[in-house]
């Protein structure tokens, strides 16, 4: 039996450049990179040195705090460079890929017959643990805490997000194998949510609690679903895994290979042909976007426009990302831009902005901030796009003045930075909400554990 989750608060940002539903294979890039920064809160300890030959699935580094958490190489080849930043912080481990890929063999396993401990160890060994993220704090899960439930959101509501119904087609066996495996990790339920009218392969899985989600973004955000299904309280932990990562886990159990190939959506108005490509995690952006990108004054984002990360063409696809977005940079002045009527931008107010007249229209937004940074002035607007039972402005302020008691009481355990993407988008004072939340969560994690 599925249960319905319907939310009303939120905002669908409709943009030009939805990926067309055909998938091509991107050519293999010559260099791949794994960036420890993608795994927030992990301090890497290198295993592979420059010059080491690795197979796909072999560990490059592990977490300093827990040596069992390995981070695998997505391809087979040779570690060519370890890029370091200030204080020798590891920024990226670069690997030149072999022409033909060889995989480290982890052996096929029958998840159904394994114990929780065996599943966990298998995930550790194959470098799949980073796929398991935890709330609170939105970081790679701490394997020593028992989660009260595991959540999988197979409904992507972010602007231009890859359509998971499309990208996961034909992956039923892998998904089922993965669900069987990860459901061993919790005493509680595995909650899977799909779109209300979805044809998602996840809707037919056994051993899960299925939820049907409808409503505007952020209905697809896993925090929204957790808040509706089984909210997090102090002292509780839930784990979150994305469906595309479940496919990798499933394939690992079925074939013994760690295959980090995923279907990536190329979206946004700066792509001449927005569509889907298959690419290996960590591939160079230039290879994946080859012959498709309008190079002139373009912002490339690994991820979606709300919570993705800005990358340059010579950088690499983020570890968790299944989307590359390209939109125009907005680095130009606009004459009387603050008081003339606006037809080509989105707004939740009706202050001489007319996007409310054309709710179906797709907009080509650029990266201009449309105003300067100010103190919080306007009230009541965040609440319109924030569906959790939390006072967003009060929580943000508590995070800014770092009162741990208030951060805890006002809902700090329940949120991830991406939940504040919409409030940041509509913020009249142009405050960096996601940054405030990220820093606050880090502080909470440090102080409260």
């Amino acid at each position, binding site marked *: 039996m599925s249960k319905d989750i319907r939310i009303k608060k939120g905002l669908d940002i409709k943009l030009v450049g939805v990926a067309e539903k055909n998938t091509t294979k991107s050519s293999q890039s010559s260099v791949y990179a794994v960036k420890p920064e993608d795994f927030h809160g992990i301090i890497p300890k290198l295993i592979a040195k420059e010059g080491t030959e690795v197979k796909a699935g072999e560990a490059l580094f592990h977490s300093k705090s827990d040596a069992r958490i390995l981070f695998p190489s997505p391809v087979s080849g040779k570690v060519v460079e370890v890029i370091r930043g200030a204080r020798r912080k590891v920024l990226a481990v670069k690997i030149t890929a072999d022409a033909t890929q060889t995989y480290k063999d982890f052996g096929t396993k029958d998840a159904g017959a394994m114990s929780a401990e065996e599943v966990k160890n298998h995930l550790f060994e194959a470098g799949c643990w980073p796929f398991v993220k935890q709330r609170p704090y939105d970081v790679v899960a701490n394997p020593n805490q028992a989660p009260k439930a595991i959540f999988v959101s197979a409904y992507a509501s972010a602007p231009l997000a890859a359509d998971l119904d499309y990208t996961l087609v034909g992956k039923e066996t892998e998904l089922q194998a993965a669900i069987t495996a990860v459901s061993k990790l919790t005493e509680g339920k595995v909650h899977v949510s799909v779109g209300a009218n979805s044809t998602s392969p996840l809707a037919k899985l056994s051993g899960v609690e299925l939820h049907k989600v409808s409503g505007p973004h952020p209905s697809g955000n896993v925090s929204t679903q957790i808040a509706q299904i089984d909210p997090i*309280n102090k*002292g509780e932990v839930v784990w979150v895994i994305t469906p595309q990562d479940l496919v990798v886990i499933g394939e690992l159990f079925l074939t013994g290979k760690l295959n980090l190939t995923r279907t990536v959506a190329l979206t946004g108005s700066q792509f001449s042909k927005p569509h889907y490509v298959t690419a290996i995690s960590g591939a160079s952006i230039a290879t994946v976007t080859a012959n498709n990108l309008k190079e002139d004054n373009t*912002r490339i*984002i690994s991820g979606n*426009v*709300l*919570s*993705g*990360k*800005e990358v340059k063409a010579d950088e690499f696809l983020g570890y968790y990302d299944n989307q590359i*977005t390209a939109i125009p*940079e*907005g*680095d130009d*002045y*606009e004459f*009387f*831009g*603050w*008081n003339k009527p*606006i037809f080509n*931008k*989105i*707004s*939740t*107010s*009706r*202050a*001489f*902005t007319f*996007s409310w007249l054309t709710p179906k229209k797709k907009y080509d937004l*650029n*990266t*201009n*901030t*449309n*105003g*300067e940074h*100010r*103190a919080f*002035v*306007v*009230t*009541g607007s965040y609440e319109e796009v924030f569906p959790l*039972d939390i*006072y967003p*402005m*009060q929580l943000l302020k508590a995070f800014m003045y770092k009162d741990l008691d208030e951060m805890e009481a*006002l*809902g700090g355990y329940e949120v991830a930075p991406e939940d504040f*993407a919409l409030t*940041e*988008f509509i*913020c*009249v*004072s*142009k405050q960096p*909400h*996601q*940054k405030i939340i990220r820093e606050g969560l880090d502080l909470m994690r440090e102080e409260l554990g």
Partner: protein
Amino acid sequence: MSLKQNLHNLKEKYKGTKMAPAFNAIHTFLYLPNEVTHGGTHIKAADDLKRTMNIVIMALVPCLLFGMFNAGYQHYAAIDGSLRTDVLANFFTLDNLWIGIIKVLPLVIVSYGVGLLVEFIFAVIKGHEVEEGYLVTGMLVPLIVPIDTPLWMLAVAVVFGVVIGKEVFGGTGMNILNPALTIRAFLFFAYPTWMSGDKVWVYGAAERANEIVAGSNADAISGETILGSYAQNQEVIYSTWDKFMGFIPGSIGETSTLLILLGAAFLIFTKIGSWRVILSTFIGAAVMGLIFNQIVAADIITESSKFYGLMNTVWWEHLMIGGLAFGAVFMATDPVTASQTNKGKWIYGFLIGFISIMIRVFNPAYPEGVFLAILLMNVFAPTIDHYVVQGNVKRRLKRTKVKTA
């Protein structure tokens, strides 16, 4: 080279210097800046604080224009009472507007000039950007003072209001009290004879009163507001229609309930003003008005009481006279000083309306209590929010207990 390029070059040249904020203020007034997002969301919605403030100014413009015509109309009607017999024909005349131009515009200019100067000085000294808050304050101030307010007095009050009411707290967004009302309160307590009584509301009324005393001019003149008349248990000569349309003496922008409601509709439609605050303020005032009406109906108060006039005022009339409507729509809704939670806004607005009418009735010396009520509730707004937020916290804690029990 284009203006755009010139300004850009100047901006680069002055970057990091003391004068940068002042220069940026002018630059960003003309052009939306070329800033792009870094981290966080890569796209941003269309509105910024300037646009928000601009909408409020637009909502105030009808009140300002009406106030200018009304300045002239009240002046001539005081001299020649016959104008009152056909108000509409005698209202929108160039003569009336001319009085408005010579009396009201200087107030607007002084308000903006002095206020923005103080803001610029603070921005340069403290190195923050010139913020937009004063754009609205500067327009509100001339609308809530009597027509004959001397310009120097206004200037002194504006300096006081901006410095003590806002900048010492850290500027726009950080203030506890509504800056415009702080300015109004300063004027009221520093120069009470210029802010109340029956001589200040109509241009020239004071001089004419002196002439009458000297015996040179026998025409009577009444420059009293409706509230003043009620407070002294006198008959009011204005019809309900006059009161609603605004053909009455009063502070410059507050008289026309019709245009204030028009502004309210605009603010609510654009989602800039909080409909919760506006509605609940009117409800609060109506409830207090009804209570007083009941007291009179129950014969607890007799005609000899000094409170009789205002207590006997029909409850809905309270909503049209004095500054209640203006306060509810343009003052109480100030998002910085109002309650910030939606539930809090209901309580906050209700109490403003309720206390406004209470002060109005019980304070015959100065029957306009709205600005005091709003300032009082400004102080209590954080407390209201605190309890609303605590309700949410308790609900969350309760959830935990149920789970672990």
